[in-house]
């Protein structure tokens, strides 16, 4: 009995993984085809407006609070060692490399992921996705690909916005509220933060964007019937996106670190 239940659950889990992997692969192929097909550009453009432009305020607010909170939290510890002028390095490197991209992506998973899953889930339960198929159109190409491309292209830009606001927020709290010398703050920041650090955050955005879009679209496409089904799909989409953002962040941190150490082996020792 127990073995049977465990076996059935394992098979069910493997089936789900297989279906998700297939959906991801088909979404990627459809996105590539959409890139070379100008007739799909209006769809992508429309999604870029819905997904990207309308997310700017929320992402900027997230970034600003990240920078401001970091300044408040780290000041006492650095001041205790007389290193308060180094606060800018700590804030800015944390913002551009980790907290900015991750928290902006989490915010996007909530805002975009939830909306995508709810929209596609509702389309699924009202047979609109079947209607797309019945008219001889691939719903992955028509519905998923523009969303994946919009997320892929715009998440890095949204992360740049979050980074900028994080830097401004951290600066304002550090200099205006905590009284750190402005020139020293920027001077240490400039010497501690490299283009590489900023690039890492932006490249992470590409992966986070694709993960959020693919997971949300998949959950919408496979949503169960009824209001409960749509609600459950939205919750699952957010949780899965959140976990995948953290897992991807860890994996990318390891990969980027080894790349950095390979190309600049001595720099990390300085």
């Amino acid at each position, binding site marked *: 009995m127990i073995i049977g239940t465990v076996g059935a659950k394992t098979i069910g889990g493997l089936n789900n993984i297989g279906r998700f992997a297939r959906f991801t692969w088909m979404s990627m192929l459809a996105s590539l085809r959409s890139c070379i097909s100008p*007739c799909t550009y209006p769809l992508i453009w429309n999604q870029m407006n819905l997904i990207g432009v309308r997310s700017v305020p929320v992402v900027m607010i997230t970034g600003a609070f990240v920078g401001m909170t970091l300044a408040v939290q780290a000041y006492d510890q650095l001041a205790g060692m007389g290193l308060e002028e180094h606060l800018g390095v700590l804030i800015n490197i944390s913002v551009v490399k980790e907290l900015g991209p991750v928290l902006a992506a989490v915010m996007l998973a909530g805002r975009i992921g939830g909306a995508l899953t709810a929209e596609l889930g509702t*389309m699924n339960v*009202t*047979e*609109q996705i*079947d*209607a797309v*198929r*019945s*008219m*001889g*159109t*691939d719903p992955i190409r*028509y519905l998923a690909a523009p969303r994946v491309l919009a997320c892929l292209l715009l998440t890095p830009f949204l992360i740049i916005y979050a980074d900028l606001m994080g830097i401004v927020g951290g600066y304002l709290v550090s200099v205006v509220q905590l009284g750190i010398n402005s020139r020293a703050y920027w001077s240490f920041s400039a010497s501690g933060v490299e283009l590489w650090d900023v690039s890492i955050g932006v490249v992470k955005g590409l992966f986070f964007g694709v993960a959020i879009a693919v997971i949300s679209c998949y959950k919408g496409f496979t949503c169960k019937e009824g209001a409960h089904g749509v609600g459950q799909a939205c919750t699952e989409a957010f949780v899965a996106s959140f976990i995948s953002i953290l897992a991807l962040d860890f994996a990318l941190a390891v990969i980027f670190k080894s790349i950095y150490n390979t190309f600049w082996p001595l720099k990390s020792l300085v």
Partner: protein
Amino acid sequence: MKEVDKENNIPADNGDGLIVLKNITKKFGTNTVLDNILLAVEKGKTTVVIGPSGCGKTVLIKHMILLLRPNSGEVYFKGRRIDNLRERQLNEIRTHYGFLFQGGALFDSLNVAENIIFPLRQHCEINDFKEVEELVKAKLAMVGLDGYQNYYPAKLSGGQRKRVALARAIALNPEVILYDEPTTGLDPIRSDVINELILKLQRELNVTSVVVTHDMTSAYKVADRIVMLHKGKIIADGDPDYIREHPHPVVQHFINGQVDDDDLAVLRMSGAVSQAQFLPRDFDQ
């Protein structure tokens, strides 16, 4: 028309239909919804599939266009086997079909005109937008809704939504139109409008139609042939007169809208209505 309610008593001409379902079985988990179904849809005729709610009518019609794939069996369109094709190959086949969904399934982010243009945009190169506008106007006029081009589906009534969905279904001039419960949820007059539309399309476009319904008025009005599904099997198949006189008690109960003896016995054995109205004391105030 021949009856196919006995196993192995299958008409020999089944292979000549425009759409042929051959030994189709469909299961959802352990529930067998379609059990070894054999059905050939004749070209240019209206075939109506009747049966009680949940008997698998929608599942059957979705197999005809491969929106669902069978667990076993084969589907043929114009003599070509299509159940083994990939989705991409099926997309071309599906342009020969129009599908009217039960709730219309209009895209609620698009207005009426954009809904009708959708299949054209996907499959035709649009150079002359004036021509497309004229086409949309003609399709909407066909269903009596010219002038509603800029309305969004949320602003339309149930009957109007179905008519717009029908206009969208015929946008690509299909050879086959599949109707899933076209009159469900509509008042008798709106239902009759839809029935008249089905007949009009049949007359004017000479399409092959498959209508899934449990509305017997509609079935008798539009059908050239009626097929009854029960517990995943076809239990009756013939023209409307044949179905009216069919000896099978399940068919008679269904077409006359009478509850059968087993269901009556269950109702009689269940508790009195007054018992079901009991409320907890705290709530009963």
